[in-house]
C-alpha cells in the first residue's frame, strides 16, 4: 500500500484525536448534575388513592405480577392499598395504561437502589408520596 498515503491517513487520525482533546466532554457529573428526564419517563409509580376504585385491573395486566392488592385496607370509601414489588417490576407501563380511573402514574424518579431487598417493596405509605429520606454524600444533598 502506498507508504505516503498511509502516512497521510495516520496524520489525519492524529489530527482528529488532537482536536478532540480540547472539546468539552459529553459526560456530566452524575450525582451532582443530572439530565432533565422527559415527562413520559417510566420511573417509579405514584398511586393516587382518591381516584382508585380497587378494580385490580393493574394487578391483572402486570406481566410479572409485581403488584399486590389489599382490598380491605381502605382510606377512602372505595379504594385499596397497593404493594409495588420493585424487585419484580420491569417498568413496562401496562398497569398505568390499564388503569381507567387514572389512579396510577409514572414519575421520572429512576434511582431506586436500596440496601435491602425488602425495602424495594413499596407499601401503601411509600407508594402514595414522593418524598424520601434525604441522601447525603460528602456534605451534598442528592435526594
Amino acid at each position, binding site marked *: 500500500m502506498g507508504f505516503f498515503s*498511509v502516512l497521510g*491517513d495516520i496524520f*489525519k487520525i492524529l489530527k482528529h484525536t488532537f482536536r478532540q482533546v480540547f472539546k468539552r466532554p459529553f459526560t456530566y457529573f452524575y450525582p451532582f448534575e443530572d439530565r432533565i428526564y422527559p415527562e413520559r419517563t417510566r420511573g417509579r409509580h405514584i398511586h393516587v388513592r382518591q381516584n382508585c376504585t380497587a378494580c385490580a385491573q393493574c394487578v391483572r*395486566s402486570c406481566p410479572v405480577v409485581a403488584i399486590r392488592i389489599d382490598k380491605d385496607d381502605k382510606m377512602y370509601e372505595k379504594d385499596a392499598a397497593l404493594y409495588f414489588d420493585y424487585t419484580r417490576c420491569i*417498568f413496562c*407501563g401496562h398497569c398505568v395504561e390499564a388503569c381507567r380511573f387514572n389512579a396510577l402514574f409514572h414519575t421520572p424518579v429512576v434511582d431506586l437502589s436500596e440496601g435491602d431487598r425488602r425495602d424495594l417493596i413499596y407499601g401503601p405509605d411509600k407508594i402514595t408520596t414522593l418524598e424520601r429520606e434525604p441522601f447525603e454524600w460528602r456534605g451534598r444533598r442528592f435526594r
Partner: protein
Amino acid sequence: MSPNILDEAIDVWFGPQHVSAHGWATKLTLVGDYIVKCDPNAGYFHRSAEKVLEYRTFRQGSLVMERMCMLEAFLAEYPYVAAVEKIAELEVPDRAKVMRTIMMELSRLHSIQFWWGQFNAELGFFTMALWPWVDREYSLDAFEELTGSRHTVSFSTPGGTRFDFNEKVLKQINRAVKRFEDRLPKFRDMQMGSPTFRARTKGIGQYTAKQGLKWGLSGPPIKACGIPMDLRKDAPDSNLAYNLCDWEVPITENPDHPGESDALDRMEQRFKEAETSVEIIKQLLPQLPEGPIIDAKARAKVNRLPAGEAYGRVEGTRGITSLWLKTQDKAQSAYRAKIRGPCFASYYALKDLVPGAKFADFIVIFGSLDPYPGWWDR
C-alpha cells in the same frame, strides 16, 4: 492436520467470563498461534423465552420478545406483534405504520452505532469505541421522549402503537439524524482510513455468499457478499411503510474477491446500512399522516384469538428476525411460539469460519458478524 500436531495443541476456553466474550463460551484448540479447532458452546443466556411466551397474554408477549435483543427493541418486538395482527386480522392505521417504520430505522441506526463501538473496543481502540456511543445517546433520548424508556421501549402493540409522536419527539429524532450525518466523514477517516484497522480486518473471516447461506447467515453478513437480500424489499410487510419511500438495498461489492466478504467489507456494509436508514427516516418524517394510532377494536380482539398460525418476520440489524406463532381456539396466550434470531446462525458459522485463523483474529471474525447472545440463547 497430521495427528502429532494435535497432541501439542492447547485448549483455551474463550469462556463466558472472558472480557470480550459477553456470555458465550468457545473452546479453541490452539497450535502455537493458529486456531485448529473451534467448538462454540451456547446456553449461558438461555431464559427459555419460548416457554415463557406460552404463559403471557398477547398484549404482554411483545415485552418478552423485545428483551431478546435490547439494542434493537423496536425491531425485536415487531415479529410477535406482526404475527398476532395476522391471526387477529387487525387493520393497522397509516400513522402507526409510518411511526413504526421511522422508529425501527432509528433503532437500526442506533444498534449499528453500538456495534461500531463494540467492534472497535474488541480491536482495542477505545477512542473510536466511545465516539459512536456518544452519538447513540441522541437516539436514546428520542426513544425516551417517545416511549418513556431508553431500551425496553415496548412501543408496538397488536393493532398499532402505544404512544404518539409530538413535536419534542420529532425534534429529538432530527437531532439524532443530524448528529450522525455531520460526524460521518470524521468516522470514515478514523475507521476505514486507519491503516491499522485495514491491516487487522483485510482478508479476515472470509467466506463466499454460498457458504454464508449454507450456514443460515442473513442480513449484513450476506449483503456484504454482494447479494441484496433484504426483507424490507423482498417481502414488504403490509403493516410497515417501506413502500412510501424510494431507497435501494445497500450492498458492498469488493473488487478483489467479488462473491466473498471479509471483516472490512462487513464494516463498509454497515456504513452503508446506517446511511440508508438515515435516508429512509428523512424521507418518511414529512410523510407522517394524521389519524388514530391504534386499531379501535384492537383491545377487544386481542384478548382471545381464534385458532391459527402466523409467521412474523422483520429485517433486523443482524439479519432475519422472525417468530412463528400458533394459537389454539379462544386461548389467552400462544400455544407455541418459535423465535428465530439472526445470531443463531452467525455463532454456528464460527465452527467452520475460524479454524486456520490466528488467535488474535478470533475476536475480529466474530465481532464482525455482530454477535448478540440474546438471539441464540433466547
